[in-house]
């Protein structure tokens, strides 16, 4: 190679100076030659210039030319270099596919999970509802104690519509939210959730129908009248919710004008329109019905109002409370719930979503730490490679650039996988999400997460590309070359960094595991015996009574009693009972107010309303609820016998604190004989049942039970049976044709199905948290394994010497495990502290489990240390297999 090749210039050349250099060289050489021919300096200069021609014009021409060439060459060079760096990186990845695949999977999982969660979060919590100015709509209801609504009727509220200063207009929504009832369309019958609203509901919201139209004022009247004055059937209308329209009715665009039939009342409704997607208030509603009687109705309603200009939510609440107190002092309300429409619609899922999102962020952090650790591990294995390259003339920038290209490739691959994972997760979110998560059908990948995905990917590139580079740069170029033949020694400082990273991963994994354990324990309690009744083998059966034939409460209860006797003869049915209130309908419906002896109507008006139910003799056996005192009902408790009732313990405590409730009397002052057998007669308490979480999953409410012979019935039964619902259906049909041929079987569901909606949210929380926890644990284990493996690799010689000097295999192994134990232990202690500090945010989601539950935290610790021990055991074993001769020879 010729000497002058050393002077090859790469880029950054000064084009103009080069051109001048070249021309000056030429002229000086010519001058020198002329001088050697005997010219004077001046003569030589003049002659050379003349011979050269127009120097400045040539220089300008050359400079222009060279500058444009340098520019395009620079660009080409940059691409060439990138390509060669990328090729180099890909070759490196092919050489160590394990590293590449692991890093990409870790990144993909982290990014995918966080993007998907972000999409859900954004759609459910942040996205706009299809209403006008959603944060100016307020939803309010009054209560006596927070959590138990106690709201006035529309006829009381009607004057408030005119006088209100804080609300420009408002609508009423029946207090029971979305109640399930059967509906027949064509030849199909579904259970659909109905919400009842005043006709101006959609106007107040400022929503536009997707199809057809919403309600008009006259629809309220039509809904009220059983038949028109001339005997014609009035046009009763409903509006379908988007979800019900799409999923239950196949999105039929010609549905407007078609009819649905309520098989219980035999009333026909016309479908007036379809609401836009995202509008399903009250939560999960399938269709809306106009309030019967509109503003003269006597149904407790929640207020959905539009705030007047300048009014606040707090102001509206204060005015509403004041108005309700003045309108009817007997309500004795103590306050009101008030929140914007946005908060109301998405309110109850916010804690679980927030916590899951935090979990995803933690997972992403762990993934980042892990990939960072992997890259560090790789970097330390390449110290020598880089040292050699630098010694051969590679610039620091060249190495940094190559590392950046590698990280970028990883990030692009990880980000792409992440997007795939996110797409798959979002496509299947409906399968795992709770039923009551609003607007889930609208979650789309396109709805934003691309931006955070890009952000996360870029961040990953920077962190992982720069960190190892910095650490390499810190290292003395020459030192790795001086170290014998050993490759990839971790420096003490770098190892400390890596061990700290692993300890942090362990700590974060423990926080997630502890959260998962708490939610799982809580779910276990919700699913287990802690709810006060035994759900195993219990079926919920609903019949459609023949309302046309069995017109009175007495006739209906007779059907129920015949049915119960007949069901007792079916093999496989252990116990059965008629009932009025199916489990888990909430506390808004079938609330009864009783009067104690000696109380005036006014005094009784201040008694609490409680859940009421009408049940058969087999009720407590069917649900597995023990009777604490007194007796259960028998078939003898019928119309001709003295009126009796059973209350649960909470009820007894509420009405007669510290007294024996047995023998006490109560009555329903306004009950009529046609509605309830026994009417408003005094009913004596003959039994006290244990509390059970029958109305809502998370708590037991006071309940009063009437015997079916002294109450009423409208179609529900519960069965304890060893048979499956499918097997029982045929037998139930047979039983029906024996005792009530005109009554129809509508639905048979297992108690698990009944509880599923209530359990969906805790199930989702526990499930997602557990899977996050497992992934986090796995990642932490990978990290621990990596650190221990490199430790053993680095100390092969020391271990070899120790074994050669007679150290026992067990001693060597214990030593490696001990070091892993220190890393994992430090992480676990930090994680335990973190878990204790943060688990309090979970408390709103927990059921009968303390946020510092020692079993959950201890269990999480144990699992973590077990998995950590396993991860450390593999390298520890490898350490004991070190052949001293080979280890020393390898040096």
């Amino acid at each position: 190679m010729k000497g002058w090749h050393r002077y090859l210039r790469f880029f950054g050349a000064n084009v103009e100076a080069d051109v001048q250099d070249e021309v000056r060289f030429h002229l000086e050489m010519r001058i020198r030659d002329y001088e050697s021919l005997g010219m004077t300096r001046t003569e030589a200069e003049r002659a050379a210039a003349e011979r050269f021609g127009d120097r400045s014009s040539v220089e300008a021409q050359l400079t222009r030319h060279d500058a444009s060439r340098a520019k395009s060459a620079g660009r080409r060079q940059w691409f060439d270099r990138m390509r060669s760096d990328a090729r180099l990186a890909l070759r490196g990845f092919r050489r160590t596919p394990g590293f590449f695949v692991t890093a990409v999977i870790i990144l993909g999982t982290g990014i995918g999970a966080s993007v998907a969660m972000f999409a859900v979060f954004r759609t459910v919590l942040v996205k706009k509802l299809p209403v006008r100015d959603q944060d100016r709509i307020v939803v309010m209801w009054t209560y006596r104690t927070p959590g138990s609504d106690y709201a006035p009727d529309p006829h009381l509220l009607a004057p408030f519509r005119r006088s209100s200063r804080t609300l420009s207009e408002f609508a009423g929504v029946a207090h029971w939210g979305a109640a399930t009832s059967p509906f027949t369309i064509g030849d199909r019958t579904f259970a659909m959730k109905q919400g009842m609203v005043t006709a101006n509901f959609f106007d107040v919201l400022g929503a536009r129908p997707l199809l057809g139209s919403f309600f008009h004022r006259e629809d309220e009247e039509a809904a009220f009248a059983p038949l028109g004055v001339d005997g014609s059937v009035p046009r009763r209308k409903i509006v379908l919710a988007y979800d019900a329209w799409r999923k239950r009715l196949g999105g039929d665009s010609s549905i407007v004008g078609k009819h649905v039939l309520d098989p219980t009342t035999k009333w026909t409704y016309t479908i007036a329109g379809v609401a836009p997607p995202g509008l399903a208030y009250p939560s999960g509603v399938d269709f809306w019905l106009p309030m019967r009687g509109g503003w003269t109705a006597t149904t407790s309603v929640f207020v959905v109002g539009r705030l007047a200009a300048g009014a606040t939510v707090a102001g509206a609440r204060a005015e509403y409370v004041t108005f309700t107190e003045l309108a009817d002092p007997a309500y004795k309300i103590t306050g009101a719930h008030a929140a914007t429409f946005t908060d109301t619609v998405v309110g109850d899922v916010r804690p679980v979503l927030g916590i899951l999102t935090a979990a995803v962020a933690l997972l992403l952090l762990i993934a980042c730490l892990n990939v960072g650790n992997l890259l560090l591990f790789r970097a330390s294995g390449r110290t020598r490679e880089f040292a050699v390259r630098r010694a051969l003339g590679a610039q620091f920038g060249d190495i940094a650039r190559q590392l950046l290209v590698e990280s970028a490739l990883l990030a692009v691959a990880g980000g792409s996988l992440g997007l795939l994972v996110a797409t798959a997760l979002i496509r299947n979110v409906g399968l795992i999400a709770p039923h009551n998560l609003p607007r889930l059908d609208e979650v789309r990948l396109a709805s934003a997460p691309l931006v955070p995905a890009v952000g996360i990917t870029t961040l990953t590139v920077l962190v992982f590309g720069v960190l190892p580079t910095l650490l390499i740069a810190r290292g003395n170029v020459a030192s790795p070359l001086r170290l014998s033949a050993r490759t990839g020694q971790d420096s003490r400082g770098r190892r400390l960094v890596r061990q700290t990273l692993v300890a942090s991963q362990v700590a974060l994994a423990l926080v997630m595991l502890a959260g998962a354990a708490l939610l799982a324990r809580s779910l276990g309690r919700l699913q287990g015996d802690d709810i006060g009744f035994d759900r195993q083998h219990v079926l919920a059966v609903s019949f459609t009574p023949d309302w046309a034939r069995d017109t009175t409460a007495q006739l209906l209860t007779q059907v129920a009693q015949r049915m119960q006797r007949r069901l007792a003869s079916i093999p496989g049915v252990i116990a059965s009972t008629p009932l009025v209130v199916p489990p888990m309908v909430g506390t808004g419906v079938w609330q009864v107010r009783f009067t104690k002896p000696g109380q005036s109507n006014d005094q009784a008006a201040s008694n609490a309303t409680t859940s009421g139910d009408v049940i058969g003799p087999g009720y407590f056996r069917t649900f597995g609820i023990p009777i604490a005192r007194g007796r259960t009902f028998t078939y003898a408790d019928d119309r001709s016998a003295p009126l009796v009732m059973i209350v649960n313990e909470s009820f007894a405590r509420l009405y007669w604190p510290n007294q024996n409730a047995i023998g006490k009397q109560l009555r329903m002052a306004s009950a009529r004989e046609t509605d309830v057998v026994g009417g408003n007669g005094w009913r004596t308490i003959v039994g006290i049942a244990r509390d059970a979480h029958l109305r809502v999953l998370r708590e037991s409410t006071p309940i009063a039970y009437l015997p079916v012979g002294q109450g009423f019935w409208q179609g529900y039964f519960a069965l304890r049976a060893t048979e499956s619902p499918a097997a029982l259906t045929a037998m139930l049909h047979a039983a029906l044709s024996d005792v009530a041929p005109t009554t129809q079987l509508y639905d048979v569901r297992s108690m698990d199905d009944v509880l599923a909606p209530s359990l969906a949210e805790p199930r989702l929380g526990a499930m997602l948290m557990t899977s996050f926890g497992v992934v986090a644990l796995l990642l932490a284990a990978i990290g621990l394994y990596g650190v221990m493996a490199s430790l053993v690799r680095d100390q092969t010689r020391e271990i070899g010497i120790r074994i050669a000097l007679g150290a026992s295999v067990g001693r060597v192994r214990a030593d490696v495990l001990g070091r892993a134990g220190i890393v994992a232990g430090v992480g676990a202690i930090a994680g335990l502290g973190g878990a204790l500090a943060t688990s309090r945010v979970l408390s709103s989601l927990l059921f009968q489990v303390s946020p510092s539950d020692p079993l959950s935290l201890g269990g999480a610790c144990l699992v973590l240390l077990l998995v950590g021990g396993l991860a450390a055991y593999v390298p520890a074993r490898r350490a004991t297999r070190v052949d001293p001769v080979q280890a020393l020879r390898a040096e």
Partner: protein
Amino acid sequence: MPIGSTDLLQGTLQILILKALLAESTHGYGIARWIEHTTGDILRVEEGSLYPALRRLEDKGYVTSAWGLSENNRRARYYSLTAAGRRYLREEALAWSRFSGAMTRVMRAAPALT
């Protein structure tokens, strides 16, 4: 009497340069000197025009350049012939000898110049 560079055809200058580089890789002045010596200073090149011609040859890929040290230890830009340049030169040389042969025949044809 030397022939001025203005009379020199563009293509001729390029061939001169390539031929000069066929002998050895050298700097612009080296090329000028080679032409001077070889032609006995008859084809006197306006030396400034060598450089734009060199750039054109470089753009066509017939010549490459790199900085190096001159015989008197000065920094100078060295040019060398590429394989493509060598091929091109061979073709052009063939065309030239045909052309000059034809011209010679023309000049020798009767009636002779006196």
